[in-house]
């Protein structure tokens, strides 16, 4: 077992940290207040090769393994303070590019992957609807076959990147009488007649990540845009969740490291009652808990990456990783806010923003409650 980084990985990490610190932190606080996405930063990340890291070079990617990709994303999160951007990038990578790579035919991959990798066509993963959430497969959007096309009708909500997307991976029922087994998946290009993308109303955190609704009314999509066979929607969704739940927080791990460093420095510098506040056990306990969470999160994340590089489906490990990182992020953000005291509550110091941004982590990509349910249900399989 080797926990070390290769010299190539260390160099990649250093390059990405330097890139992120110098190029991606423009007006973060102002843009958070204005709920403004930094499209230039998105393009710069694509140019840096971040979106395509794990994709084949022949499709515009970097051809890296999963472990190296996670190292790069952790570095991105360490250097970049825009938590919306560092959620949106992996969101596209894991929930659009991975299913396209696994289920797309060669023509579909050639059509869609280069634009996803070079940032010119941001990808949205469109599953959630007004009446489905945790019960994701209770999908009311329909796709009726009409000759060489499907006619899509329905409403997707709270979809990441929807207002700026160039293409959306849309889940719709091709056989409503089959319930969850009648779902299929489609790559739908923005601008297709009958597809309407709308921004969402203001949200608590992650305001720099665009979120919105996509409404389909008599939207004709070529059958050539269907990903995988009819009825494979559930398998495609589960496949994308295997990736997304494992690695959606890869950037956040780097942010946790930066958060811990900032909290440690502040606690050493800030003096009360004649002592640095780090000398008080209530404060030092919080720092120790943050450090332990960082370590356990890193171990789970990198083990997930290693397992993926062995070619395995990892539903148990994905659920463990999503649950632990989501909860740890929020807990450490609250600890960081308490360590900073009043300054932690003020927007100026950007500590409170991490609390707002990371509160969503226990909800999106499957709530913590759902992850616990998945883990418990998978235990008998693991123990057989």
């Amino acid at each position, binding site marked *: 077992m080797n926990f070390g980084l290769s010299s190539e990985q260390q160099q990649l990490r250093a390059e990405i940290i330097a890139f992120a610190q110098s190029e991606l932190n423009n007006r973060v606080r102002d843009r958070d207040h204005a709920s403004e996405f930094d499209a230039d930063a998105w393009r710069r990340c694509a140019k840096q090769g971040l979106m395509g890291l794990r994709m084949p070079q022949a499709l515009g990617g970097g051809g890296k393994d999963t472990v190296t990709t996670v190292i790069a994303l952790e570095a991105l999160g360490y250097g970049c303070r825009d938590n919306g951007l560092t959620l949106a990038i992996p969101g596209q990578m894991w929930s659009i590019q991975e299913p396209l790579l*696994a*289920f797309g035919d060669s023509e579909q991959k050639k059509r869609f992957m280069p634009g996803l990798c070079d940032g010119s066509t941001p990808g949205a993963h469109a599953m959630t609807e007004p009446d489905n959430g945790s019960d994701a*497969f209770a999908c009311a959007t329909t796709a009726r076959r009409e000759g060489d096309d499907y006619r899509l009708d329905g409403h997707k909500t709270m979809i990441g990147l929807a207002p700026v997307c160039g293409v959306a991976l849309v889940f719709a029922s091709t056989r409503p009488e*089959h*319930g*969850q*087994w*009648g779902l299929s998946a489609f790559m739908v290009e923005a601008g297709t007649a009958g597809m309407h993308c709308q921004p969402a109303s203001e949200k608590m955190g992650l305001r720099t990540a665009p979120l919105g609704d996509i409404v389909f009314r008599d939207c004709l999509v070529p059958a050539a845009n269907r990903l*995988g*066979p*009819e*009825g*494979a929607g*559930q*398998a*495609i969704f*589960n*496949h994308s969740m295997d990736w997304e739940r494992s690695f959606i927080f890869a950037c956040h791990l780097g942010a946790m490291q930066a958060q811990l460093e900032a909290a440690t420095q502040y606690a050493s510098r800030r003096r009360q009652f004649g002592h640095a506040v780090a000398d008080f056990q209530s404060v030092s306990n919080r720092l120790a808990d943050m450090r332990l969470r960082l370590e356990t999160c890193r171990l789970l994340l990198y083990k997930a990456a290693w397992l993926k590089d062995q070619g395995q*489906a990892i*539903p148990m490990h994905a659920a463990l990783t999503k649950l632990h990182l989501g909860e740890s992020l929020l807990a450490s953000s609250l600890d960081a806010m308490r360590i900073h005291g009043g300054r932690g509550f003020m927007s100026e110091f950007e500590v409170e923003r991490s609390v707002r941004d990371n509160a969503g982590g226990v909800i999106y990509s499957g709530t913590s409650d759902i992850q616990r349910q*998945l883990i418990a*249900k*998978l235990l*008998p*399989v693991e123990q*057989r």
Partner: protein
Amino acid sequence: MQDQLIDFINNELLAERGISIGPDDELLLSGHLDSMAIFQLVAFIEGDLGLAVPAQDITVENFRTATVISQYLARL
């Protein structure tokens, strides 16, 4: 193989609900097996029967009944 599948489904996936299926009973459209149960069934097929199931093959056409599943697995 079909008997192994039926034993697994009845003993591991349905026993707690007091349901028992036969070779041609609907598994998916009846609601007997949900997506989590399919995870478990595929893990059994790959772990105990030693057959790799491509994710895109997990459809109602291939997993509708125990008979259909064993026919599908025979084609792998």
